[in-house]
Structures are given as C-alpha cells and as structure tokens.
C-alpha cells in the first residue's frame, strides 16, 4: 500500500520536475531567440557603421587632393574592371597651369 502510494507520489513529482525543466528550456530558447533578434539589429547597425567608415576613408574629398599631388602610391590593378582606360591621368589634367605639349 505504502509502496504503491510512494511510487505514485514519485511519479507525480518526476512529471512535475520534468515539466518544470521543459518549461525552463522553452523559456531559455525564447530568450535566445529574442537575443538573436536584438543581435541582428546590432549587427545591421554595425554593418552600417563599418560601411560608413569605409566610405569616409574613401571619400573623393579626402583622396582627390593627395591623388592629384602624386602623394598616393598608385598601383594599376592587374585585371582592371574597365577597359576604356584614360589616355591622360587625372593627376596630369587636374592642374590648371598644365599647358599641353
């Protein structure tokens, strides 16, 4: 009698504990999903920041002057994207005093 009662009680407790554990796991997963959503937002923002920084570093305003003064070491790409290369460089043509000849 007592053995049966104890067994049922243990079973009930076990089921309850399992339920709690599953509930806890569900909650953890929900939290992880939520975290991923916020992380996605953060990554998107990080992407925007890095893109902005890259654009800032390569703005024509900051590159054109040194390029025209010959301060930037230029290396022509081995496989240029464009085939219609300039017959005269920006450096040569950008100087107002550059009379031809």
């Amino acid at each position: 009698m007592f053995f049966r009662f104890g067994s049922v009680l243990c079973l009930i407790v076990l089921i309850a504990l399992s339920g709690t554990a599953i509930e806890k796991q569900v909650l953890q997963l929900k939290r992880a999903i939520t975290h991923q959503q916020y992380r996605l937002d953060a990554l998107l923002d990080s992407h925007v920041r890095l893109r902005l920084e890259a654009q800032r570093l390569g703005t024509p305003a900051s590159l054109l002057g040194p390029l025209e003064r010959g301060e930037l070491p230029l290396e022509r790409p081995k496989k240029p994207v464009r085939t219609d290369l300039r017959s005269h460089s920006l450096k040569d043509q950008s100087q107002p005093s550059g009379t031809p000849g």
Partner: protein
Amino acid sequence: MSKLPNTREPVLSPVRARLVVTIIGLGWLILSARLIQLQGVQRDKFAGKAEQQREYVEETTARAGDIVDRQGRLLATTLSTRSLYLVPVKISNARMIAEAIAAPLGLSADSLTEKITVNSQRQFLWIKRRLTETEITAIRQLSLPKGAWGFRDEYRREYPQGVVAAQVIGLRDIDGVGRGGIEERFDSTLRGQNGKRRVARDSRGHVIEILDKDQQIPVPGQNVRLTLDVVVQLYAERELDQVMKEWQPESCSAIVIDPTNGDILAMATRPTFNPNRPQEASPESWKNRAIADIYEPGSTFKPMIVSYGLEEGVLQRDESFHCQNGEYRMGRRVLHDHHRYGLLSLTDVLVKSSNIGMAKIGERMGNERLERAATLFGFGRKTGIELPGELPGILRPLKQWTSYSTGSIPMGHEIATTPLQLITAHAALANGGELVRPRIVLQDQQDSTYAISRMTTPTVSRETARWIVEHPMQEVVVRGTGKKARIPGYHVFGKTGTAQCLSEDGGYVHGKYISSFVCGAPVESPRLLTLVVVNQSSVGGETFGGKVAAPAAANILRQALVYLRISPDEQLLRAAANWNDDQIEF
C-alpha cells in the same frame, strides 16, 4: 465463531465526526467558490492586470533609406544612437542627479537642476539626444536610481561627404523630418514605416520574449540614387571655393549637366554648410542658388533668340547687321556696345556679344516671336527638377511688354532666370534642339521605372541647334569673349554673360553685376555642359563673365571630361602647345 470484542474506543463521536467533515467540506466549498471567482468571473480583469505588468509594446523606428550618388557613393546614411531621458516625478533629489549627469554630458549642472525642478511633475523629460558611445558608457557607470532615467533608441543622420552637395541633399532634423533638398522632397520614400512589437519582461524589467501577437515589422526607408557624381561635384565645389577666394562675391553657383538626357552631374552653391553640423550654418548658406536665385541672364540668353529667329526664317545664317559704331537710337533709348562695331555677321553678333546687333534682331523678330522663343526654351516656368524651392523665374505676359522690351529681351534683360533654367535651355541647343527636363534622381527602389520616364519638348531643328553650337558658340571660345575657357585637346563652345543685379523693387542695383559663363564640350557631340554664375564679385571692379566665371567653368569642364574618359583630340593637343600664354589663362 464468536465475534471479537472491539478493544479501541472511537476518537470522535459520530456527531463530532459529521461536524469535522462538514467544516472541511465547507472549507473546500469556499476555496472552490474563490477559485471560480478568480478563474472564472474575474479572470479577464486579473489576466489583463498580469499582462500589463509583464508585457509592453515598444515602437520600432524604421531606419531611413540612404542617399547615394550615381556610382553608389554614400551621401547620407542613418546610424542608431541613444538619447537620455529622466522621469522627474520619480526624482527626489534633483540637484544630486543633475550634478551626476551634467559632467559626462558636458551640460551645466545649474540649468539642468532648474530644468528638472520646473518639470518635476512630468513623467518624461529629454536630457540630451543622440549621445556618443563615450557618453552612454559614462551614464551607465553612474548607477542612477532605477526607474528615474532611461535611454531611448533613435536614429542619427550622417553625411559622410561633408559639405559636398549640401543644399541638394538637405538634412534631417532632430525629429527625423527632412528639411530641404532631397531629404525633404523624398521624405516619405526615405522615411520608411515604423513598426511595433509586444515584448514580455521579467521582474527586473529585462526582455525575455518578443511575442508574436500585435507585431508590426518596421519597413526600412527606400534608398534614393542621384544623378550626381561626387567627383564631378567635388570639382565644381573646389572651383567655387577658388572663385570665392579670388573674386570675393556675395555668392556663386555651378551646375554640370549631361545635355543628352538632362542628368545633373554636379550642382554646387557658395556659401554652403556642413549638414553634419547644421547649427554652424549661416542663414544665407541654406539656399540652393542653382534653383532659387533669379537674375537677368544677359548675353547667355542671346543664342536662344538667334536660334529661334533662324528657325522661323526671320534671320539668315549668312546675313550681317550694322552695329552703328557702338551707338544706336531705338525710340527714346540709346543703346551702346562695349566696342565700336561696324558691320558684323550673325555669328559675330554672338561672338562679340553686340547688344546693338541683338536689338536689331529683336526689331526684326518682334515681341510676339521673342516671347515665343523665351517660352519655347522653358523660361518663365519651373524646370520640374525633383528639388523643393525651385523658382519659375520671371517672364512677363506679352501684353505687359513695351517697345523697350523689343531691344531688352534679345540682350537677356527684362527676363529673369534661375541658373538651372539657363543651363537647361543651353542643353537643348547642345543636344540638337530637344528641351530635356533636368533630373537629379536617377532611381529610387520603389519606382524602378523612374529612370526611363523622360520629358522632352522640341525647340528648334537639329540643323539650327548644331549651327549655333558649332559656329557662333564655338567661335565665342576660340576668338570671342570666352577665350579663357579654351581647353587643350577639346573643341569647346560657350557664351559669356554679364548683367546688372536686380533689386527687390524690380529695378537694378547700381554697380552690382552678375557674371556668368556657360560652356560645353566636345562640340562634335556635346557630352557635358557647365554653367558658373558669380553674384557680385568685389575684387578690382571686374565683373565681366568671360573673366570672372569662364576660367572656373572651363576648369570644371576640363577635369570632368578627363574623369569621364572623354578623350582629348591628340591633334588639338599638339596645336594647343602653340597657344600664347596670354591666350590661355586658367
């Protein structure tokens, strides 16, 4: 079998036992009734209360779209940032809080204390918006009282190219509303649509779950691609800076257009401002003078009149006009030329920019034809460019014209135009006679067909337009008033203009001039057209468009031609080596 006697006495008498059972039963009954009350009758009330404590709806702001140039270079983008607010009603010691947060935010503790005290009954008070990362970290480290403060996510607009095309792009104010330029005109496209989400939080206020119900995903703003090319724009901006330094005018503007399709490659104005620091901008710098300044075009208007006269058969290409040795009486009015010209061919009337020659052409054409010519080339109405604040210029109704108008209109007087209207009219001559609506937006994501929609109006025949460009306008640069715009290796055409400034009461401002120069290349197939307008140069009394504006326009044109891989003619390059130094001055 005998029955065994019951040795145990009963604990409770049957009466007592019934009483206990009844009490326990009643207890269960009461508990059951309470359970029904809580779970059944008052279920919604308590569920609502619990939900209110556990869940809340947060608004998710949509990220505004980017503005890029025709090559995809970033002109404006959006970064997320945080803003600090206080809940004054939950603050007991305003002074202490103010002193704590004032230093890291660079604010005055006294004024902050006053601000909190004055608003002590409010639930929400902005302290500083769009904080830097350092400021956010500093505030977090302060351990301010819980519930009395918070951060709110906001977006900040960044303009990585700085002052480049500031008036064209405009800016977004602190509330994310577009002000001026593309930001204002395409505000609804760029802005996007805010969303909302319901989140569940734990007892400490941390979000534990984003719930699916009531969720509205924010729709990010669309990107807008402009026709501008930042490099060409930079050439224009640099030349305007040089003009401001050299001639110290009140203002100046420059436009570079592709005459074949009306694409604006550059549109610059001085004075200007940095949209990243709008608080430092002067009131004059906000105006986009390329579309919102009106002035008399002067001689730059003459080619349109001559081309229409030719088209109507009123003028012949090979005819000549006697320019009366610099003085010509027209009714009660005596007209003068800068030089005493005698007989000038039609080409030379434009090359020498003879006012008397043009007045005689005006007499030949009559007011009606003059008015039709001006209207045909788009004067007196907006061009329709996708920018706010464009002015239509001034072209008075024909009935208000007098005999004075017959002489004045052909010289580019009694008519007012914006720089954009003028270059659009010249683009019509350069592309063979089609008046193309200028455009600044190449494409937006929403409307991919935007790039295809074109509006053109025929003006004069291709032959007439080509003749004007290849002969008089090219000669202007080769041997006329625009010699300073010669570019080694290219056949350039152009026209100078010098006009008195208009006063607000409709008259002229004595001694104040607007100098302009429009030029394009290559003559054989014009790919670029540049206009520079200089308002009231103040150095050395020099006002002539051929001297003040022409070098800047030519410099912009030359650099843009090379950048756009429009190769120079090698034969012309060699010939240019023999130009005298006084002939080529940049």
